[in-house]
């Protein structure tokens, strides 16, 4: 019964603590044709609500777990197969999957594995998913933006690591997440050296770097400093390429210490403001309350802003690096507005996304990385 034309859609693992998810709605009906990246279902966890995108192309032949079901991570929730696969073969698999759900015994899914390394005298926290990169060529490193952390990649890290073709590390820059909060002089060069130092610390000679916002400028600077270490760059709404920046947002974010001050600002991050959940606000406040974070954010603000204008110009760095690159940008970005022209041959503009492209349209980011890594 192992027909390799039948693909299982399973409950994803979005973050370390997720053990199960509730399907709140099936966006596509049984019988519909789906393409890679199509929205399949809305899923709610105790931490986050998200949309599960299809990683397969075919027909959604069977829904195993209906809307309303609470399903363990890794359990089969639907089957995608071409039209020619027989109903009997599918029904046998559905029965098997439902028995598994009823028994509650679902094979353990290994989520991102947390780790720490010491770089430039600082503890750097990261998570790793997948084990595809024995020669380092298929290692991907994800670098978040200003005020973000490694968990912002939760919708991207799993599909990138899927099928064991890549090792995907998501790091916390200094001053962020669970890394040390001392950002030194906060310069782009310092942050770029931390990323290169991270590669040394995990023993990776050469990696594909993916950066969002400030992280986009950081990975570009890293590639300019050590092009031989960087196989490719995927820049997601990167800093340093737009002539404008929403300085009021950045200053407001750095200064906000209460829910009442922070919440209204965060709408600027997304095309769809309903993404600003209570959990997101609470998590950011918890981060901002940590000792040292205020100083880190204030220091980095000087790296990002010169008056109300962007202080970073990353285009010369990208040219100097001379590595394959792809740029992804949300058309409705209200933090770093989409510039009229961008360097490089490959630019993807995502219509329905704001600044947080990797959260709103994770598939667009996965596709860009896949394109540039040639996987």
């Amino acid at each position, binding site marked *: 019964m192992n027909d390799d034309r039948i693909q299982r859609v399973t409950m994803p693992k979005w973050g370390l603590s997720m053990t199960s998810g509730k399907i709140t709605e099936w966006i596509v009906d049984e019988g519909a044709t789906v393409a890679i990246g199509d929205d399949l279902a809305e899923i709610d966890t105790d931490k986050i609500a998200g949309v599960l995108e299809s990683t397969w192309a075919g027909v959604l032949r069977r829904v195993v777990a209906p809307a309303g079901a609470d399903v363990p991570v890794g359990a089969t929730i639907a089957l995608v197969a071409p039209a020619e696969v027989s109903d009997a073969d599918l029904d046998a698999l559905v029965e098997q999957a439902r028995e598994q759900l009823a028994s509650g015994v679902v094979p353990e899914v290994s989520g991102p594995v947390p780790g720490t390394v010491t770089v430039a005298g600082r503890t750097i926290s990261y998570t790793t998913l997948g084990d595809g990169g024995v020669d380092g060529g298929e290692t991907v490193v994800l670098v978040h933006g200003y005020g973000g952390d490694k968990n912002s990649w939760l919708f991207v890290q799993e599909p990138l690591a899927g099928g064991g073709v890549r090792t995907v590390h998501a790091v916390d820059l200094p001053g962020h997440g669970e890394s040390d909060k001392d950002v030194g002089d906060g310069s782009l060069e310092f942050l770029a050296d931390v990323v290169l130092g991270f590669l040394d610390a995990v023993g990776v000679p050469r990696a594909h770097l993916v950066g969002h916002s400030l992280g986009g400028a950081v990975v570009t600077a890293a590639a300019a400093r050590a092009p031989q270490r960087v196989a490719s760059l995927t820049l997601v709404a990167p800093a340093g390429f737009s002539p404008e920046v929403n300085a009021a947002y950045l200053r407001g974010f750095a200064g906000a210490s*209460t829910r009442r001050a922070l919440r209204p600002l965060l709408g600027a991050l997304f095309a769809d403001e309903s993404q600003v959940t209570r959990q997101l606000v609470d998590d950011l406040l918890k981060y901002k309350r940590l000792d040292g974070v205020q100083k880190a954010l204030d220091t980095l603000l000087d790296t990002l802003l010169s008056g109300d204008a962007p202080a970073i110009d990353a285009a010369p760095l990208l040219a100097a690096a001379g590595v394959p690159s792809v740029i992804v940008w949300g058309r409705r970005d209200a933090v770093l507005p989409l510039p009229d022209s961008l360097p490089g041959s490959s630019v993807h503009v995502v219509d329905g996304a704001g600044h947080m492209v990797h959260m709103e349209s994770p598939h667009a980011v996965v596709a860009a990385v896949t394109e540039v890594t040639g996987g």
Partner: protein
Amino acid sequence: MARTISYREAINEALALEMERDPSVIVMGEDNAGGEGSPGEMDAWGGVLGVTKGLYHRFPGRVLDTPISESAFIGAAIGAATRGLRPVAELMFIDFMGVCFDQIYNQAAKFRYMFGGKAVTPVVIRTMYGAGLRAAAQHSQALYPIFTHIPGLKVVVPSSPYEAKGLLIQSIRDDDPVIFCEHKAMYDTTGDVPAESYTIPFGEANVARDGGDVTIVAIGRMVSVALDAASQLSTSGIECEVIDPRTTSPLDADTILESVESTGRLVVVDESTPRCSLARDIAGLVAQEAFGALRAPIQQVTAPHTPVPFADSLEDLYIPDAQRVVNAVKTATEWQRS
């Protein structure tokens, strides 16, 4: 990184981190280092319920075991605070505060005001409150409203391990006297707490659950009772917004009023006795400031106006529980002007 630790461990960690960071922080109280120096008792008790355990050896000379004389050592802590130390005094049970009231409400609370802002009194008085441990009427009261009543004191009632650690660090760094009220039945409750230092600002309520039908304001241990009631009510289609003020002084009135303006209904859950309580205080605030938004009478779920009973069965009835909160919410949602 965040780990799951207990309320007791969270408080211990906050003390250790602040003592590490700031040499002016000292800890004092009865049995803080109890048994130390006597044969066979090498590790201190760490206070009556073990909260300060391990600090005596880590911070030599900075964990002081005091005589059983609250008026003396609370006075000493307040005096030390005015002279540049940041003492954290543990006054075992909030019920015993009466014997050192002059030091607290007529001295510590007044210094900043009476010296024209030139004096600061950065003292923290940690104390246990609350019923549920079969400790009888003199060791079980929820007396935080008494301190809330006094201008010049800040009053903190943490509802979880995360809140306890961040609020205690904030309390130690604050330049005013803080009464830090720990519920004695919560020490073994656990939750996610970052290993690093962090502070939670005073006067900022936590919205512990979102909901559009009824606002529940709950204090300290009652937050978990309210959340339990809210999840039961959710299954019957009633969505409650649960607000934890975190500090009763200063009080985040804005968050409470904004919530009631959207729900139109208020239930206050307070473990203290009802007269002049937080329940009455918050009900009065909302009645005055958000009268036009109210669609039903404000409901108050409190202890009865009696001493805490010692009989198990009576003590269990005394403490507000989730069922009483559910009933109060239903009274509010079903209420109609006749």
